[in-house]
């Protein structure tokens, strides 16, 4: 009962979005469904991600935020038994088209995970990993510069420049997460996906990352999944609310938090569930 009610309401916001913002959209998902085996985890999501903006996904846990995020760089391909249907267009190309190569796609769409996951290598090698495998640097100097630039952008350079050869796993949690961000931007992607990047961090580290996201917005399209509504409000320009695998509402962050159109959204942001 609840379900059919939700489904009806859902079409209103998404349809209007679809037509209104088509020109600024970096990524357009249309009728995207995800199944894990028999489990229907994401139901018919239609959503645009605008270029040069921070879009945040909110919703109670298990509602499919990460699942949708992982559709955008085809990370779901690595999960056994996961099926994605519908289309996801990036710059007008369907990224699920068989002609599209995931390696090239992921070089354009970087990702940062919930738990910092630096490789068991030196700080330098962590950052240099992407440029190395993709052959982005012609020589050692260029690579050095890329590493330094990325660390600089991630606001980590001052803290680590004296110990570039020490292992990345030896950094603090917040530093590790910024290392992972630096690792992602070292290959200069167009989009950066962040899955609850601050959930494992303390408030000070969180503040640094949020600041960083704000700076990165200039050069990258950013999508962030977050558990914290305050965070969504602070860093994002647009917000999408998910519930039980469905996209309930999407709109400007201001509007979502001050004037939600849907009862469920209102219930969630006022803390009645989730």
């Amino acid at each position, binding site marked *: 009962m609840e379900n059919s009610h939700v489904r009806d309401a859902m079409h209103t916001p998404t349809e209007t979005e679809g037509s209104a913002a088509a020109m600024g959209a970096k990524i357009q998902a249309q009728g995207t469904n995800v199944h894990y085996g028999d489990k229907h985890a994401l139901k018919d999501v239609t959503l645009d991600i605008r270029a040069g903006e921070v879009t945040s996904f909110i919703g109670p846990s298990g509602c499919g935020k990460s699942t949708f995020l992982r559709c955008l*760089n085809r*990370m779901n391909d*690595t999960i056994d038994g996961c099926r994605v249907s519908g289309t996801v267009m990036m710059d007008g190309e369907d990224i699920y088209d068989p002609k599209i190569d*995931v*390696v*090239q*796609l*992921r*070089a354009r769409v*970087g*990702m940062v*995970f919930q*738990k910092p*996951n*630096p*490789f*068991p*290598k030196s700080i330098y090698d962590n950052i240099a*990993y*992407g440029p190395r*495998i*993709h052959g982005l640097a012609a020589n050692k100097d260029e690579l050095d510069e890329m590493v330094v630039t990325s660390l600089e952008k991630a606001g980590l350079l001052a803290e680590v420049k004296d110990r570039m050869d020490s292992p990345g796993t030896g950094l603090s949690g917040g530093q590790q997460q910024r290392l*992972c961000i630096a*690792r*992602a931007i070292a*290959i200069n992607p167009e989009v950066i996906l962040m899955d609850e990047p601050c959930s494992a961090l303390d408030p000070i580290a969180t503040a640094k990352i949020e600041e960083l996201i704000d700076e990165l917005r200039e050069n990258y399209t950013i999508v962030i999944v977050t558990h914290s509504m305050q965070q969504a409000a602070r860093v994002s320009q647009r917000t999408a609310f998910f519930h039980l695998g469905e996209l309930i509402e999407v709109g400007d962050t201001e509007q979502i938090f001050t004037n939600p159109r849907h009862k469920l959204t209102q219930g969630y942001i006022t803390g009645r569930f989730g």
Partner: protein
Amino acid sequence: MPFSFLLLVLAGLAVISYRFGTARARAVAPGRQSQLHSRPMYHGLYAAMWCGVPALLIATLWVAFQPLLVKGLVMGGLPDAYQALPEARLNLVWNDIRNLAIGDVVRAQPAPEIQAAADTFHRLYAIGNSALALLCLVLAIAGASFALRRVSLTLRARNQVEKVITVFLIASSMVAILTTVGIVLSLLFESLRFFTKVPPLEFLFGLHWSPQTALRADQVGSSGSFGAVPLFTGTLLISLIAMCVAVPVGLMSAIYMSEYAHRKFRAIAKPMLEILAGIPTVVYGFFAALTVAPFIRRFGEGMGLSVASESALAAGLVMGVMIIPFVSSISDDVINAVPQAMRDGAYALGATKSETIRNVIVPAALPGIVGGVLLAVSRAIGETMIVVMAAGLAANLTFNPLDAVTTVTVQIVTLLTGDQEFDSAKTLAAFALGLVLFCVTLALNVFALHVVRKYREQYE
């Protein structure tokens, strides 16, 4: 009465005691079952234990120590002329007596005092066996009647039974400790005796091994024929060859199985690979000696190389194949312990599967893999049958895989098979080699298990 028959009789008595025990427990409490402290079954078990356990203990001790006792008595009864003989000769005499008594073929007409001793031997055994049987029966019946007399409403039979079982459990867990103690003591003891004949430094660092030529006592040690270095290098060479086969193949198989293979392929190929681990080593040895070695020899000669017919290469190759499943199953565990987050990190950067494996998974898993390889090395060093059958006896100090070499385990087997007098330097040398083997494999294992455990903790 043969021992197994005695055991059967004891078992029968125990069952009867059990019956009587339960019956008595019911009888003392007709209609008052609930007032019994323990259920009748426990009274039965209580009686059965009193019947069987003491007798069984005595019987086991007796069987273990009877040979010692008989030997002491028989040898003590020999004329003084024999008593004065050196220990080694006395052992030979003892062998003669025993063979005579057991009815084995004896070469010549025995001396009358030997014949007499053999008769004593026979008689002692006969007396001993009957005495044992009698003692056991008496103990069993006495125990059972004692227990049955004690059956009453208040007898805490269950607690008594459980106490005995607990003692049995604890004693069982001591067996593992005793085994280790036994191994260490026997190896140490015999090795020390060896080192009184051959200095340890000469044994450990000597370059010349030919124990078969050390026939006379004055040759032992002085001729320097117990230098074990060629055995150590031979063992190392063969283990190295084995590792060159097992590590790449085992590791790549594990990687393919866990990262690439379809579920169906894995479901078939994995158990197939494990069959390799279940084949007895004597089968590998036969295959190495009869098929692989001649093949390598022919192949090598076709290329103009001179290959020994028992080349280290053949034994090493086959041993390597034997170890493949071991390496691959450990690698599989270790690779699966690498967190998914690590893979995700690499994939999200656009790494291909092989890049992820080579640059991220394998380095992350490296400590675990190294630990696993060390365990495999200790396997290879201790492996016996393949080298006994395929590597031969030539103690060459060489690192040429096409030459014949010998190993520590081969020499242990050679020194101890066949009729040897136990105290000769030759047989004792086997124990010294065993001690080296034990120490090295133990050290490798302890170290490797430590590395693997540290690795696991890192990702927990």
